[in-house]
């Protein structure tokens, strides 16, 4: 589903990614963990070209993303993304937030999109807020709307960039529950997170990144209970 080969990303002289190689299968949920500044978010943002990679090859869902001729807008429809800061559109109601893209892209009619949006909003538990504006929602509700918004385009892959890091502790659970459900339904997911509990419980595979490379990867039980690398052990001893 996702193949990444020797991915490099430099910001001027700052080398953020130094050769990432990873392969994510269809239906797999991969959690990326690591200290801040290790390149986790940059790696994720390269996957849908929010950052232009300096070198390397990325193939997602059969599309060579790094090909200069790729129709990137077309590809991004199939690749949902959820941000740390939610990035809901504050001038639109919750319902319009979800329906904007499918309607403007001509994928669904307004009625179809609204029907689908209501289903999704009900599924993530914010159906009663459809007519409200984002400022009227709590952080957890906003993030669940953001997930529904991404799902409305029927993506094949979902990318999560620290989806719970900007939330109050008591709201983290409700967002993780939605993500857990999504993973159980077989969505291919790449999740950058600091929620070790979630990674252990839901992920099929955990990837530990530091210094712009993947230091260690494996099943959650391997990484959390028997980390091989010293750096991984150090990191986990601080966060667990």
């Amino acid at each position, binding site marked *: 589903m996702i193949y990444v080969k020797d991915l490099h990303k430099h910001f001027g002289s700052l080398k953020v990614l130094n050769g990432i190689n990873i392969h994510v299968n269809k239906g797999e949920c991969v959690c990326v963990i690591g200290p801040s500044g290790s390149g986790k978010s940059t790696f994720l943002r390269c996957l849908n070209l929010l950052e232009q990679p300096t070198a390397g090859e990325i193939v997602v869902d059969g599309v060579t993303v790094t090909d200069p001729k790729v129709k990137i*807008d077309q590809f*991004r429809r199939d690749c949902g993304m959820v941000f740390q*800061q939610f990035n809901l559109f504050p001038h639109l109601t919750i319902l319009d937030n979800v329906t904007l*893209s499918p309607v403007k892209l001509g994928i669904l009619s307004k009625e179809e999109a609204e029907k689908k949006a209501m289903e999704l909003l009900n599924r993530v538990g914010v159906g009663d807020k459809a007519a409200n504006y984002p400022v009227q929602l709590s952080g957890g509700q906003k993030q669940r709307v953001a997930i529904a918004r991404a799902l409305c385009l029927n993506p094949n892959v979902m990318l999560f960039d620290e989806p719970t890091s900007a939330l109050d502790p008591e709201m983290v659970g409700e967002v993780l529950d939605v993500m857990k459900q999504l993973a159980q339904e077989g969505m291919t997911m790449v999740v950058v997170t600091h929620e070790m509990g979630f990674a252990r419980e839901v992920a099929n595979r955990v990837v530990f990144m530091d210094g712009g490379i993947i230091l260690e990867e494996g099943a959650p039980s391997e990484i959390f209970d028997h980390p091989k690398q010293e750096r991984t052990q150090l990191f986990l001893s601080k966060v667990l």
Partner: protein
Amino acid sequence: MQAIIQTIIENFQICFIDGNRYRLMLNGLRMTILASLCAVVLGVVIGLIAAIMKLLGEKRSVHSFRGILAWVGHIISYIYIDVIRGTPSVVQLLIMYFIVFRGNFTFLCAVCTFGINSGAYVAEIIRAGILAVDHGQMEAGRSLGLSYARTMRYIIIPQAIKNILPALGNEFIVLIKETAILGYVSIMDLTKASDFIISRTYRMFMPLIGCAVIYYLLIKLLTLGLNTFERRLRQSDIR
């Protein structure tokens, strides 16, 4: 007291009623309103284009054809804003009237002058508004498969407009008042009309105060309209 009122009525009679001079004022007012209205529309269109051209060129690399195009657009926009803001609008009007239009199409000349003039200021206002919208909004729009243009149109610009409406209102007000220089090239706007009445009646008070009051009411009306519009846009801020 009686004498003062008597004088005012008499003056009013001479300045505005005799010889149907109120018609002069009304025609002048019409010219002021029409010229400002068309110039505002033209100014916003030019300003929006110039703002986006300037923004697009800022971070594009010059390694691709589109990059070079964006860079050229940036330079054009930069020069346009630089030149227009650096020269007085009276001079621009004179150049337009005598050199570009050679005294023909006076109305078109007025609209072009003020439209192009206002566009430079509006461009910077709009650019500021767009820059003030959180970068995450563009990323969110793009991540949903919307193109740059569509994200701009449906997500960034609506939010920018809300933020810049007070500044934009300022610009509209300045523009309306600036049309008073149309008299320089003998286009009969409101100020020129009152000037004309003065030269006919040798009375200053009534035409000038009347002219000022009409400008004031015109701008009051615009301000009220803008306030209503702003309140409607602010609906999404109600908690």
